[in-house]
């Protein structure tokens, strides 16, 4: 049973005026903190990826006193590092008709009309500043012979607006961001706290005033007070256990904020990435993504005959079905991720899949090598080919790659307004951890853009606006406040429960089983019966988890099992919310595909009459009874239409 709030508490605080000038007007009108006063404010930033690192560095540059936390041993390892393909910017350097408007339009449409127009427009606008900033930091972007920046077209775009640094764009952008962050550490404006996991948000008089975290080396539970808290802790794809995310990615920090009152929006919007290396066995710990830039030159196909077991090289041209080119002639192999993923799944479900399991399709570079030569192909994709070869033992120069979709990115996240503030005053949420810009599906090369836009160019303005308008300076709190004591007690209580359960099943075992439930029923395709079953299964598994988990070790030490146990405990609740959200959204849109709601061609069928809203869930004290708040979405500029990539 889903409970809908009688009156939504959500106000997106979108500035008035035409969309082209909303951000400009807003910046001109918002409150400022004077340079001399900035150092009086302490700001906690949780996370050091593109969003968190950029925010911490930029706020340090402005003169704020920043405390920056991460679970890794150094900020440079945040999972943004793994993004391969590129970052979009509406520079129109290629003279091919790109513009802020077109990037805005593509992003709204790509998100299947479930994003907030005003946020998306601002994102497109800021995209150009990001490239300037990163180039100035010494990010070695790909260049033309004349020294100008090179571009490529990427995942569902008809213009070349993607900037890249070989297949390591995320790494290079993160290292640029990390270098700016370390400059502020050197200047004494940012204090780094590595190997710390945030386990609670501390509220004083309803506002975010600090965090409680566990020191992952010593096990000590530590408290930090501040005037505002910024959360940039990434997405929740590891709820599926197997995903392209790093093994330490988790929803815990966001979920603990949710349990303190922050609304969790659109949890069912998850993205399945089409070009991953297929699953090999049960002991596998993650799935490896191959950049979708591969689809620029690689051609996706399966044999025309069902269950054809011949090696790819023995299947003649006429007996191959280049299904993306056949079904979507205008976009071909470059259709958006959700479309490409579902098409591959359909081919495999209907018996055309290849490889040992029958759950993969070919991505073939034979034509590209013939057309461009081996050297050019190596130049473009060499490191990706090497990576594939190292993992599978097969060379993509000699035989087609095999790929299959895998959970990759989560569009849902904590609800934020136009200022990136959640419904809890002072708690701001940035990057993948928030829900705001990608709607129901994220286009390729847009995640890096959003993380950096939030960190470098949005929060430096909007945080000042919040601080200047609040009375936090007059009401400084310290960690002696009873609210901190209560949070520490709650964290200790949970740790004691986990370590003390002394059951029989390992944390990994539980996580694996939860992942299976999620992938089978809350994954690429969903239906009512499956979702209802998943909800029942998750509840039973959650109950079993607390009864029978075997964590081992102590809480006063470096203890990986304990870290994971806390994260899996949160996924046991958040997974149910994803399923409830997917069940209530009786339509298909972007990454949320309900089998009951599809066009005759098998594409997502939205229901704009009933579901053109952000579904933001409020914690009620019981994971099975969240309360739904709706933020209606209005499309004044890009008119609601059925997406078509044919």
């Amino acid at each position: 049973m889903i409970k809908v709030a009688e009156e939504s508490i959500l106000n997106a605080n979108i500035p008035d005026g035409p969309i082209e000038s909303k951000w400009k007007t807003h910046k001109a009108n918002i409150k400022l903190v004077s340079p001399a006063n900035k150092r009086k404010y302490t700001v906690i930033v949780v996370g050091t990826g593109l969003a968190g690192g950029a925010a911490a560095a930029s706020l340090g540059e402005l003169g704020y006193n920043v405390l920056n936390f991460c679970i890794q041993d150094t900020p440079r390892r945040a999972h943004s590092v793994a993004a391969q393909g590129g970052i979009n910017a509406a520079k129109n350097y290629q003279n091919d008709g790109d513009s802020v408007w077109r990037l805005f339009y593509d992003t709204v449409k790509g998100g299947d009309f479930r994003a907030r127009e005003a946020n998306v427009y601002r994102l497109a606008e800021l995209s150009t500043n990001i490239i300037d900033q990163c180039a100035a930091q010494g990010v070695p972007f790909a260049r033309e012979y004349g020294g100008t920046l090179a571009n490529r077209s990427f995942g569902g775009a008809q213009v070349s607006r993607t900037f890249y640094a070989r297949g390591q764009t995320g790494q290079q952008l993160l290292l640029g961001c990390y270098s700016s962050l370390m400059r502020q550490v050197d200047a004494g404006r940012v204090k780094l706290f590595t190997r710390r996991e945030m386990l609670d948000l501390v509220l004083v008089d309803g506002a975010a005033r600090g965090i409680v975290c566990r020191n992952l080396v010593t096990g000590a539970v530590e408290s930090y007070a501040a005037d505002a808290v910024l959360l940039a802790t990434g997405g929740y794809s590891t709820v599926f256990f197997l995903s392209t995310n790093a093994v330490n990615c988790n929803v815990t920090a966001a979920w603990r904020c949710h349990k303190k009152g922050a609304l969790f929006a659109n949890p069912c919007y998850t993205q399945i990435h089409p070009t991953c290396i297929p699953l090999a066995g049960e002991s596998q710990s993650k799935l490896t993504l191959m950049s979708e830039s591969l689809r620029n030159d690689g051609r996706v196909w399966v044999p025309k005959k069902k269950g054809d077991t011949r090696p790819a090289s023995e299947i003649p041209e006429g007996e191959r079905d280049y299904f993306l080119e056949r079904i979507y002639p205008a976009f071909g192999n470059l259709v958006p991720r959700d479309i490409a993923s579902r098409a591959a799944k359909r081919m495999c479900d209907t018996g055309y899949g290849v490889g040992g399991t029958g759950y993969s399709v070919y991505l073939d570079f034979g034509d590209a090598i013939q057309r461009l030569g081996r050297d050019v192909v190596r130049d473009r994709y060499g490191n990706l080919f090497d990576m594939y070869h190292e993992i599978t033992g097969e060379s993509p120069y000699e035989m087609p790659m095999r790929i299959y979709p895998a959970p990759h990115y989560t569009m849902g996240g904590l609800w934020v307004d136009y200022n990136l503030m959640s419904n809890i005053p002072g708690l701001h949420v940035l990057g993948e951890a928030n829900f705001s810009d990608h709607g129901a599906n994220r286009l390729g090369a847009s995640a890096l853009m959003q993380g950096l836009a939030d960190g470098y160019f949005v929060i430096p303005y909007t945080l000042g606006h919040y601080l200047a308008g609040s009375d936090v300076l007059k009401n400084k709190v310290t960690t002696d406040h009873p609210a901190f004591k209560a949070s520490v007690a709650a964290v200790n209580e949970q740790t004691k429960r986990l370590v003390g359960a002394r059951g029989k099943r390992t944390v990994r075992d539980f996580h694996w089983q939860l992942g299976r439930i999620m992938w089978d029923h809350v994954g690429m395709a969903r239906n009512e019966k499956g979702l209802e079953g998943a909800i029942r299964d998750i509840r039973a598994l959650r109950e079993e988890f607390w009864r029978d988990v075997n964590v081992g070790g102590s809480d006063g030490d470096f203890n990986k099992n304990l870290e994971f146990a806390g994260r899996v405990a949160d996924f046991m609740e958040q997974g149910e919310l994803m399923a409830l959200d997917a069940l209530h959204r009786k339509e298909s849109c972007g990454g949320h595909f309900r089998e009951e709601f599809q066009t005759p061609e098998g594409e997502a069928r939205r229901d704009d009459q009933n579901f053109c809203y952000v579904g933001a869930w409020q914690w009620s004290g019981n994971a099975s009874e969240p309360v739904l708040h709706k933020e209606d979405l209005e499309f004044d500029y890009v008119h609601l239409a059925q997406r078509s990539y044919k």
Partner: protein
Amino acid sequence: MKFNVKVWRQSGPNAKGGFKQYAVDGILPEMSLLEMLDVLNEQLTKQGEEPVAFDSDCREGICGTCGLVVDGMAHGSRLKCTTCELRMRHFVDGGTVTIEPFRAKSFPVIKDLVVDRGAFDRIMAAGGYVSVNAGSAPDANAVLVPKDIAEKAMDSAACIGCGACVAACPNASASLFVSAKITQFSLLPQGQAERERRALRMVGQMDQEGFGNCSNHAECEAACPKGISISNIATMRREYMRAARLHEERAEAGGGG
């Protein structure tokens, strides 16, 4: 496949460590070395023994978190490969696999195979950046960078900061890590303004952290999972000497350093 796994166990920074041996079975050739350790840890947890502590994150060779000495070599014997990318098909079925932490005075052991590489962050904070505040950058195409220079800078920038170079070096030198960053910025027009200051400060911090000096063994290059060339170290030396000379000249001219 099955293996006899010989692992370094050490309960804390000041505890005495030693090797322990464990038998693992049912390992598939396509599993990575870290997945093999996952299997071992599941086994230990079920037996009520403490699992082997090790660091890892992305498990695709880009984050630089994992780093183990495998059979005496940092990241194992495969060239241009991180520990997480090392597949079990490269090991002899039924054989012994020896696993140790990265060893260096400047990388103190935290527990078992986990070490503290905080020294790298401190070196980066001493100048591994271009000072440009958000918002103050010129148009990205206003500063041209020739393609070959951008490519060379990218070769150096590919460093993942794992520390294998330190672990492989008989002197536990961090020269490859430090030189890669100095080289990247010395090549690019964006890095010129702070070129001398950066070289002096980063090298100074490296020495302060207690890393050894480079004596051209080139073990670092062989161990580097990203193929960073030892020629970066030659560049770093030139950059350092150039910076030191300019620094002196400026001091003589009374301009301060």
